[in-house]
């Protein structure tokens, strides 16, 4: 059944149908031109992407409806934390086309991406940690990438299809805020790639939670499992008097209550330590620079919950396929 978007005109034939964009009901719909000209049928690239993704043990997507809650910061530190186990290979994909922060946060701005016979090589931050971002493809870091949706989608597809990650344990995908082209594309291109799930980041205040609830709804609509919610910038400890202040007040119960209301797991809270921002600016890992901060401990606890989820999921999958074989 072809999908009919919310707020579609009455009698919308569905964006995937042969009549998409051509029916009389389509007149006046702003999406009409896109529907009429989009090629129909399965996308051959999805097959290539699925094949590439099959070499990656765990795929995690970091999302938030709201900007500036710390998705990229969290992604980078999750990657640093996971890669502290030298036996694990970690890859990070930055699909924020307009505002790619990860090259800076990892301290690899200005690096070049090279092409080999097997695809694009990501930039290595450490021996077992690599990154791909549109930031590496810009001739000038200050250059604005002013692209409409389809061009962004094309880039994301290229990243998923052409980057040669190798056989890695974890691929972390950092997204821009919102529920639009980039998110739909990721969900669409990875729908057969068995993504482990999404980690949704929020800050405590209601203005952020409003957007994050929408993001959780989005995940449900595209059948993306939710590993859990992380509440970032929970509290700020004044370095002078050590009193904890809530900069972003949890006036409606914060991330934990929201997670309960939306029936998703709550992974934990991260306090705001100004040294985190400083480390990101300097391209360093906060976890190694400030190992005794309460924020570092909180990161590690959340990380272990995520690893446990992925391991359990693997075990369940293996036992399911074992059962199927014996049947």
């Amino acid at each position, binding site marked *: 059944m072809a999908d009919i978007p919310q707020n579609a005109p009455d009698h919308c034939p569905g964006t995937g149908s042969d009549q998409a964009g051509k029916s009389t009901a389509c007149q006046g719909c702003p999406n009409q031109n896109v529907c009429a000209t989009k090629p129909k049928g399965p996308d051959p690239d999805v097959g290539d992407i699925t094949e590439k993704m099959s070499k990656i043990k765990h795929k995690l997507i970091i999302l938030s409806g709201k900007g500036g809650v710390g998705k990229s910061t969290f992604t980078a530190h999750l990657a640093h934390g996971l890669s502290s186990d030298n036996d694990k290979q970690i890859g990070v994909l930055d699909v924020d086309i307009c505002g790619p922060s990860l090259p800076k946060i990892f301290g690899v701005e200005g690096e070049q991406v090279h092409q080999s016979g097997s695809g694009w090589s990501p930039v290595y931050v450490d021996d077992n940690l690599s990154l791909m971002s549109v930031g590496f493809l810009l001739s000038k870091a200050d250059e604005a*990438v002013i692209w409409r949706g389809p061009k962004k989608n094309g880039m994301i597809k290229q990243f998923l299809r052409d980057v040669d990650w190798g056989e890695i344990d974890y691929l972390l995908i950092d997204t821009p805020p919102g529920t639009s082209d980039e998110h739909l594309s990721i969900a669409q291109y990875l729908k057969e790639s068995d993504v482990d799930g999404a980690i949704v980041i929020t800050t405590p205040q209601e203005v952020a939670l409003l957007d994050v609830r929408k993001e959780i709804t989005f995940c449900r609509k595209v059948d993306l499992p939710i590993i859990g919610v992380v509440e970032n910038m929970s509290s700020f400890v004044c370095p002078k008097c050590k009193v904890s202040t809530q900069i972003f007040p949890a006036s409606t119960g914060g991330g934990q209550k929201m997670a309960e209301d939306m029936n998703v797991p709550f992974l934990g809270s991260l306090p705001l330590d100004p040294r985190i921002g400083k480390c990101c600016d300097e391209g360093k890992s906060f976890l190694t620079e400030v190992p005794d901060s309460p924020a570092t401990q909180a990161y590690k606890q959340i990380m272990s919950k995520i690893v446990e989820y992925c391991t359990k999921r693997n075990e369940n999958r293996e036992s399911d396929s074992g059962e199927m074989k014996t049947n």
Partner: protein
Amino acid sequence: MDSLEILDEKLTECPANSEDAGRSSVCEGCPGQTLCRMQGGADPDQEIIDVRMGAIKHKVLILSGKGGVGKSTVAYLLSLALARCQSSKVGVVDLDICGPSIPKLFNVENQPIVQSPYGWKPLVSPNEDVKVMSVGSMLDSDTTSVIFRGPRKTGLIKRFLKDTFWGKLDFLICDTPPGTSDEHMAIVKLLKNVKPDGAILVTTPQEVAVATIKKEISFCRKMGVAVLGLVENMSGLVCPCCKETSEVFPGRGVVSLAESHNIPILGSLPMDPKVTECCENDRNPLENYPESPTVQGIMEISSRLIGLVNNG
């Protein structure tokens, strides 16, 4: 040429925002080519938009490359300051279709948008009677997500300008989502005949944020939008206990950015938990905490803005 060099050329030469959109040689093979080709030509709705926007003296965009720096909060506080201290009639249009924060800030949640013979009636905030239009006010519940691709977002933004009965206003503040994409290109294109005054760029002090502001400046230059100035938000936190100012997002990038790009700094806004609490609880911070450094800051920014747009 190997594929990475070609990619670089295409990145810098993409003519999506010009007359050549979809028609240039670099467009061959681009997935957006067909869409761009269809964007050209005269738009019959443009005339209506020009009339509506012509009744508004000043149109100001609030931009930032980075999310979460406080664009909506600055749009909110600035519109209150303009209305209260500068006696202006102000409207705010929320162009963030996926993450609309404006209804909550302006305390117009759960108010329906009503059709009148002159168009959609914007909601009127109890705070300084600011007129507000947002997709947030069109959703049944706050968990409903708006999963629109670019063209649908652009279509809705056009309706906000064309179909809303804004009436005569002194200021229309356009709050945008982070980035430099469909929404930003749409608003610049739709307003081009009525010459918007320009854009205020909001950032936080840390380098990761300032780096994306440079992209936003580049966007404004490419699209012919004047940069009115920079606002440094979250410039420090006044601890409610010991009153010492601490740096939450350390960085000195804003001053050097302003100097290197020759852009004025309109002001710095520290974080004041009392003001944030007002924003969360539907109270007017200008009325409740006029002595707050954040409120003082936004009032200075509003008077600088008045000076700039009246001299421009």
